[in-house]
């Protein structure tokens, strides 16, 4: 058996359903084996390798299974770097196989040779440059193991062309060899008890649920724990779906653009239980003033995330599911009626709201999508204003139904990720909420969507601006619109038609319902819904970067703001 066939067999053993990729010279043997091996794995040809990485990422987040990518050497592998970085930041399991020059030419600046092993090191959980054909089955087993266990992440395998076309000289069953790969340990029972004791003494407790809860499959357990403890739950951007946002205990998202009531709860709480969130800088604001007087417990599977941003009272290195199970056994159910009533006054006083009197708002469109899909669509987003409003207004009820580039903030992610989600869940409605800027970064995957008859609904929130950049320029840079005006946008409806997709224009509030209904009735091809929204609205609430929660801006400010202390 040759190396290429061994790769396909190893992928079959892992239960791989799809490979997303793009061909090239150095990877031809593996592409050939896709045919000669007679495999049932479906190969999906994309239009750009970045698209393959994001499609695989969306597939992984929607299915819970690792996404697989196959690309060629040099520029092919170079084009997946942004996709690797995106998956790495958000703990998404990917296995990327890249072709490489033949071994004797590596390091000689040969045609399409790039040192992708070194280039990708900082953006993968681990990577390999395969030197021996006999190593391929073991390395693929290891790659899947590494990608999916502990804190998940992307793994890249660089395969020289003569390694994939070479013959295996052994039939031995591969044995994984990862002696230095240490995983999390059992949760420390003493720490579990300390959390339970502090919770029992608390008067104003809050649970902060991050992506770790979803990755661990612990959302149902979290719902039981929060309900038993009568404790409100706020989620991070990536934690959406870890707790049903329509539940009375749900506070929605916290942080820079979180709901006012979630942020007030954080500001006033005396007990904060963070499960599976790394306390990202958009959540912390001013580290020195974050939950100063509260008892803070942090549970993370990645020890390097514990106490990275702020000191905590209990730092528990554990898998979220295991920790929650132990907590469930340890805590005594109780009620926090006064606290929940108090937070209720904030919900009434500072609700999420919008006003269409000045033109069609993104928020109202997202609200309409939520109502039309009864909150059950898989929603992917791009990055920017529409992402924050989607996070606020599309209340996520289930795990795997909210897919967004959180850590990396990769524009161009939302649309291909939606294709991946649709491959994973062919019978579910998938909605990509994107901006006019980000969509144009990866719109060429319309071809991939059309050929595969993916009925993804692409809602372009078209304000003809890089809206979030313009917002920051308005708030912090004297309204200097530098490089944020997207003059020259194409006619997105014609663009859709050129690719064989459907295109619908929505230009005012009266057209929203009919336009969306028409879009959702189409089931055999992708639909672009171009929505002309108000050009210059800003996202609120907003905690300026690096500012404490007490400086949250709930309504548009009428006076100039100081330059923020924090970064982004």
């Amino acid at each position, binding site marked *: 058996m040759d190396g290429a066939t061994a790769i396909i067999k190893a992928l079959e053993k892992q239960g791989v359903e799809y490979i997303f990729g793009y061909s090239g010279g150095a990877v031809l043997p593996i592409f050939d084996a896709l045919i000669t091996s007679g495999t049932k794995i479906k190969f999906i040809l994309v239009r750009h390798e970045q698209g393959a990485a994001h499609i695989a990422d969306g597939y992984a987040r929607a299915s819970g299974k690792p996404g697989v990518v196959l690309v060629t050497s040099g520029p092919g592998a170079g084009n997946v770097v942004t996709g690797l970085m995106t998956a790495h930041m958000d703990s998404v399991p990917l296995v990327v196989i890249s072709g490489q020059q033949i071994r004797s030419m590596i390091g000689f600046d040969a045609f399409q040779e790039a040192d992708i*092993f070194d280039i990708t*090191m*900082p953006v993968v959980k681990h990577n390999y*440059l395969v030197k021996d054909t006999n190593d391929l089955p073991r390395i693929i087993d290891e790659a899947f193991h590494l990608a999916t266990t502990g804190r998940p992440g992307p793994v890249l395998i660089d395969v020289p062309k003569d390694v994939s076309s070479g013959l295996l000289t052994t039939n031995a069953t591969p044995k994984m060899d990862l*002696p*230095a790969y240490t995983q999390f340990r059992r949760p420390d029972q003493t720490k579990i008890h300390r959390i339970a004791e502090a919770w029992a003494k608390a008067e104003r407790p809050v649970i902060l649920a991050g992506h770790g809860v979803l990755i661990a499959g612990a959302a149902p357990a979290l719902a039981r724990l929060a309900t038993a403890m009568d404790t409100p739950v706020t989620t991070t951007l990536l934690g959406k779906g870890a707790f049903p946002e329509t539940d009375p205990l749900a506070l929605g998202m916290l942080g820079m653009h979180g709901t006012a009531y979630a942020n007030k709860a954080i500001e006033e709480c005396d007990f904060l239980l963070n499960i599976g969130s790394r306390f990202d800088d958009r959540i912390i604001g001013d580290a020195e003033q974050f939950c100063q007087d509260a008892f803070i417990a942090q549970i993370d599977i990645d020890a*390097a995330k514990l*106490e*990275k941003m702020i000191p905590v009272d209990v730092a528990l290195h554990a898998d979220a599911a295991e920790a929650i199970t132990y907590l469930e056994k340890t805590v005594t159910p109780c009620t926090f009626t006064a606290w929940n009533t108090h937070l209720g006054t904030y919900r009434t006083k500072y609700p999420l709201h919008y006003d269409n009197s000045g033109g069609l708002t993104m928020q109202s469109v997202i609200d309409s999508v939520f109502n039309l899909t009864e909150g059950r669509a898989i929603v992917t987003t791009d990055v920017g204003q529409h992402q924050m409003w989607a996070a606020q207004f599309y209340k996520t009820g289930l795990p795997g139904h909210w897919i967004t580039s959180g850590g990396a903030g990769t524009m161009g992610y939302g649309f291909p990720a939606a294709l991946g989600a649709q491959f994973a869940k062919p019978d579910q409605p998938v909605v990509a909420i994107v901006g006019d800027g980000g969509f144009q970064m990866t719109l060429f995957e319309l071809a991939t969507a059309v050929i595969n008859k993916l009925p993804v609904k692409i809602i372009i929130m078209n304000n003809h601006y890089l809206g979030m950049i313009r917002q920051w320029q308005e708030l912090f840079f004297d309204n200097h619109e530098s490089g944020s005006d997207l003059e020259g946008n194409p006619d997105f409806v014609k663009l859709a038609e050129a690719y064989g997709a459907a295109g619908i224009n929505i230009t005012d509030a009266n057209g929203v319902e009919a336009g969306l209904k028409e879009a959702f009735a189409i089931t055999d091809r992708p639909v672009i819904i171009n929505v002309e929204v108000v050009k210059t609205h800003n996202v609120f609430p907003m905690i300026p970067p690096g500012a404490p929660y007490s400086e949250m801006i709930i309504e548009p400010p009428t006076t100039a703001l100081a330059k923020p202390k924090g970064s982004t």
Partner: protein
Amino acid sequence: MQDIRYTLTLSVRDAPGVLVRVAQIFARRSANINAIHVSHLPNSPWSQMKITVHNIARIDQIVLQLEKLVDVYAVTVSTFPTSRI
């Protein structure tokens, strides 16, 4: 600020690229490596690295990030205020 010298001792796999992976953890955090010694442990798949750095703001983060590397088995740190050396 007192001058602090840290010596990190790493047990690592004798694998290609492991030195780059380790060095990247320091470089990303702008930490200069003052001294480094790598030796293969005879008749084993392991190597030992000894790395000396000065005045690192977050040595805890560096150690945890090093320990996270798939090819790094363990990291120990010893600290010396240089005034005592």
